[in-house]
């Protein structure tokens, strides 16, 4: 039900990619959502870090995922925090299809804010700002 065109805000605070998070923010250049993966225990985790918080292996690195996710919960932000980024907009915690206990904080775009709901199936899209690609999510067409 992506029935509303996504309009970029005029302003966003951009992330400062770190040694660990660089791949996550750059993956969109190739249309890829890159999530840190542990090669020892086989699990994904987020945010990216130099060790797996589960098994403490340091054999970890970014790996592409499908970009499909489910809205775990959300909020319609109604307050204007930034000039150039007018409300309303939806902030959501989404759970990755590959492993639901990995969540991203993101925006749900491409639909009316009132249409966002818990359990909604969404997929990634990228909004490029300079050298970073922000992964946003949009409802999956039925």
């Amino acid at each position, binding site marked *: 039900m992506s029935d509303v065109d996504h309009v970029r*805000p005029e*302003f*966003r*605070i*951009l*992330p*400062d990619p*770190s040694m660990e*998070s660089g791949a996550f923010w750059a993956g969109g250049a190739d249309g890829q959502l890159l999530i840190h993966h542990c090669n020892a225990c086989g699990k994904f985790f*987020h*945010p990216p870090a130099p060790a797996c*918080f589960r098994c403490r292996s340091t054999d970890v690195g970014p790996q592409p995922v499908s970009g499909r996710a489910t809205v*775990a*919960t*959300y*909020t*319609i*932000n*109604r*307050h204007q*925090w*930034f*000039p150039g*980024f007018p409300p309303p*907009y939806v*902030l*959501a*915690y989404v759970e990755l299809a590959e492993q639901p*206990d*990995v*969540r*991203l*904080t*993101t*925006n749900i775009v491409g639909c009316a804010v009132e249409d966002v709901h*818990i359990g909604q199936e969404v997929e990634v899209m990228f909004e490029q700002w300079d050298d*970073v690609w*922000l992964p946003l999510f949009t409802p999956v067409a039925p």
Partner: protein
Amino acid sequence: MSWLDGAAVISGIGQSQVGRRLGRSGLDLTVEACLRAIADAGLTPDDIDGVATYPGGRADAGFSGAGANELHDALGLRTRWHLGSPEIAGQLGPTFDAAMAVTNGLANHVVSFRSVWESSAQHGGSRAAMYQTAERADKMREWTAPFGAPSAANWIAPYAQRYMYEFGLTREQLGQIALTCRANAAGNPDAIYRQPLEMEDYLAARMISEPLCLLDCDVPCDGAVAVIVSRREATAGLANPPVTIEAVGAALYQRHTWDQRIDLTTMAAHDSAAAMYESTSIAPGDVDFMELYDGFSYLTLQWIEALGFCEHGAAGTYLEGGERIALSGERPLNTQGGQLSGGRLHGLGYLHEACLQLWRRGGARQIPKDIEIAAVGAGGGPVAGCMLVSLID
């Protein structure tokens, strides 16, 4: 009795002038609160041999009115132990550390304070500047600010939404926290908002981040609160009967993040409360009143549940109608008006109020029934610390 073994007590409390844009410096207010607490205990600054504060002097403008070093220098203290830290078990963390310090003989009398200058700082535009900066976001902000989520309201609202979805919590039920705080603030001459608040006002208030409206968010203020944490053996002849720190909870059993907690209907409050009860024979049913963090109303709901005053998922029913948590109810809540109406003193105000009530100095807001044990909790998301304090004849 917990590992604390009753050795750590609170011997005095103090609060500065509290208000919006007072035209006084953060350190000035901090000194006022600390001198009042020291005098309240029947001590002098020369008796103080420890300092403990959150978050310390190195914080964004207004988030900290003064740090441990500034207070130390301003009062010419001669300390054996001090601490100023943001990375502890919430805003009550320095008080826990002070309890450890006096229990272990590092100090006899620690002044533990929290100082805020947010009203002046926000008026001066520093908060807006922080939000609108062209600088890039790193550390925790790296994962929130780019998506237009600079405020804790944005991080907490999704938790409230999920709780509503799972358990049918209504806005009317959540609104009882704001209404109860406002009703209690009428009896607190230092509270920021004292005019009556009705449910229809609450429901009509401007939305900030759904389902949290403006009245679910606390009010920034300038002010400082201090308590004196003393070694029990050092309190003979002092002014107040010592309030015993019975138990503290400082646990964090999951990752220190806002969005990765496995169960989105709990918070670190549940970890801290569970750890606290494991260390004491006091049970939830023994607690007479509660002073629980309301930086955002939903956090109070979480503390009520975490501390075992209702079953998981049943907080809405517990709050229904507001009778249970009223000043005359079975377990009064935030008797000074909380931070929602009293002002965002950020954590330590709850402990100040618990002691004030136990010493029956509440005046118009004094809990009418006999009280012996208070639960105090502060923090939200991955930040949490709680304690049980008592005054038992």
